[in-house]
């Protein structure tokens, strides 16, 4: 099946099996290895990508489903102002230990920060509630998203 979609701002056309998992398409066929496969069954969030700006699990999404859609992966964050701020906040807060869950964490946080940079701490926790981390205990991850939100809000208000 021929599919066309936007990947991190660039248009992509390729031929693939319609039921190829998007995580395999991204990691194996396109070499975007930032997203990770944790459980493969929708319980860990490590494979989170954005489709049309909303979080989705790429391990439970098929190639045919992204035809005509706009896909953002963790590799796309470096081209977005919010993405750069978010990644820097994770570094500064020491929110990364083994790092396996972090691409999924940042992808889960991005739509919230884009729409509601001033989100309350509890809303951040809800946004991250589908993502498992086995190292950090989550506190520094939530701190990082909170810090990024503050910085994005300041930028948006033009202060």
């Amino acid at each position: 099946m021929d599919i066309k979609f936007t990947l991190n701002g660039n248009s992509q056309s390729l031929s693939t099996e319609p039921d190829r998992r998007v995580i395999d398409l991204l990691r194996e066929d396109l070499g975007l290895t930032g997203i990770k496969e944790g459980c493969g069954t929708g319980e860990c969030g490590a494979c989170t990508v954005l489709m049309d700006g909303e979080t989705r699990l790429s391990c439970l999404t098929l190639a045919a489903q992204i035809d005509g859609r706009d896909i953002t992966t963790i590799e796309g964050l470096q081209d977005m102002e919010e993405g750069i701020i978010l990644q820097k906040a994770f570094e500064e807060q020491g929110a990364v230990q083994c790092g396996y869950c972090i691409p999924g964490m940042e992808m889960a946080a991005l739509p919230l920060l884009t729409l509601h940079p001033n989100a309350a701490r509890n809303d951040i926790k809800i946004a991250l509630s589908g993502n498992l981390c086995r190292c950090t205990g989550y506190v520094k991850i939530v701190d990082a998203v909170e810090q990024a939100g503050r910085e994005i809000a300041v930028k948006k208000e033009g202060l």
Partner: protein
Amino acid sequence: MGECPDARLMAGGTDLLVRLRHAGADTKPPLILLSKIPELADIIMANGDLCIGSGASFSAIMAHTLVQDHAPMLAKAVGTIGGPAIRNMGTLGGNIITASPAGDSLSPLYVADAQVVLVSPGGTRKIKISEFINGPGKSDIRKDEILTQIRIPLDDGFQSHCFEKVGLRRSLAIAVASFCGRLRFDEDGTVAEARFAWGSVAPTVARSINAENALTGNRLDTKSIKKSVAEATASLSPINDIRASAHYRRTVAGALLKRFLENPQREKKHV
């Protein structure tokens, strides 16, 4: 579907793809993607019913003002499913067809006497959700049918309603027990009508007519509440599994009803 009898219909895929994966690499049926039919995601009012397309995602349902106004317990229930990404993907129709006794969207649909609309080349039929789902993972859907819509009758007279889910954690949790209830009171404070449904404590989501009838015509007092809770726990048939024992589930199911009846938080706004 007629041309390809082995094909499976896929809505959000959050249950189906996991099941196919567990079934092994040899199990790769052709899939028909319902997400390619945008009309299936519509949420509208028609003929006095709140009509939710089978392809509406849990996120869309939670955020929709018609659902918040007319089926707030459904909005609350679907908000407890999975995590945010799962809610962006999973659909109400998928939750019904999966027919898990732990399907979190189902108890509000049972309590509201919702109907499902099934379309086939031969025509359209409507059937009550409680008659449609007939066992764990089993429903009355026929080979050539598609579940297109869920119709929720607007019952404006209920002053009090609740949905509670008990899981082992707050997100990505399969319910140990869940409960949805609604109560309508007469002006003198007696219960005119009660409807209760539980998830994860029977082979399907279950109402308890005896527990409901124990309250009808009575005030909510220690005696009537005790009777209703006893009827409820007697009528449920939970199992032991990895998440909880049958005894614990039965106890929790009764406690959720008791908690609702002791503080029914009568809301001004109708359901």
